[in-house]
C-alpha cells in the first residue's frame, strides 16, 4: 500500500512537472509562462515530496519533506511576482491578442514607481492632500 501510494504521488507529481514545462514552452508571453510554471511546477514538486514523506513514514524525513513543501509554497509566489514585475518594467512585450493592460502608461521609468489608477488619483486631488 505504501509503495502504491508513493508511486502514485511520484508519477502524478512528475506529470504535473511535464504540464508545467509544456506550458513554459507553448504559452505565448511571459505572464502566461509564469502562470504555468509557478502553479503546476510547485504542485508537482510538492506532490513528489509528499511521496517521499509517505514512503519513509519517519518523523525526521516527514518534517524535512514538509519543510521543503513549505519553502516552495512560500517562495514561488514571491519569486513569480518579482520576475513578472521586473519583466513588465523592462518592456517584455505582451501577447499580441492580450485584451487589457491595466498598468499601461502608469509606470514611471525614472523613479520606478507605479501611479495609482485614474479614479483613485481623482479622489486624491479632491481631498487636496499634499503629495509627499
Amino acid at each position: 500500500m505504501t509503495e502504491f501510494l508513493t508511486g502514485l504521488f511520484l508519477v502524478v507529481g512528475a506529470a504535473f512537472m511535464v504540464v508545467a514545462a509544456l506550458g513554459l514552452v507553448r504559452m505565448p508571453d511571459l505572464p502566461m509562462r509564469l502562470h504555468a510554471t509557478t502553479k503546476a511546477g510547485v504542485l508537482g514538486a510538492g506532490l513528489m515530496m509528499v511521496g517521499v514523506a509517505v514512503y519513509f513514514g519517519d518523523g525526521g524525513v516527514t518534517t524535512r519533506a514538509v519543510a521543503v513543501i513549505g519553502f516552495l509554497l512560500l517562495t514561488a509566489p514571491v519569486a513569480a511576482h518579482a520576475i513578472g514585475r521586473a519583466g513588465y518594467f523592462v518592456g517584455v512585450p505582451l501577447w499580441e491578442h492580450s485584451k487589457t493592460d491595466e498598468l499601461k502608461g502608469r509606470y514611471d521609468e525614472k523613479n520606478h514607481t507605479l501611479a495609482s489608477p485614474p479614479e483613485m488619483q481623482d479622489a486624491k486631488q479632491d481631498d487636496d492632500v499634499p503629495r509627499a
Partner: protein
Amino acid sequence: MFDIAIIASNALLSLALVLGFWRLYLGPTLPDRVVALELIASLTIGFIAVYVISSGRTPFIDVAMVLALTAFLAAVGFARYLEKGGHRDDD
C-alpha cells in the same frame, strides 16, 4: 510495479527538463530564461525526491531544501538586477 513508477517518474522529469532547456535556449528575453531556470530548479527537487526514494539516502532531502531556497534567491536577484537596469530591447 514500484520500479516502473520510479522509471516512469524519472522519464517524465527528463522530458520536462528537455522542454525547460528548450525554453532556456529560445528565450526570447532574459525574464523568460529566468522563469525557465526556476522551473529547472524545481525539476531538480523532483529528481532528488525520486533519488531519495530509489536509493534510501534520506540526507539528500536537505539538498532539496537548500536548492529551493537558493533558487528563490537567484530569481529575486535576477529580478532586482533587471529592474535596476531599466528598459531594454533584447529580442
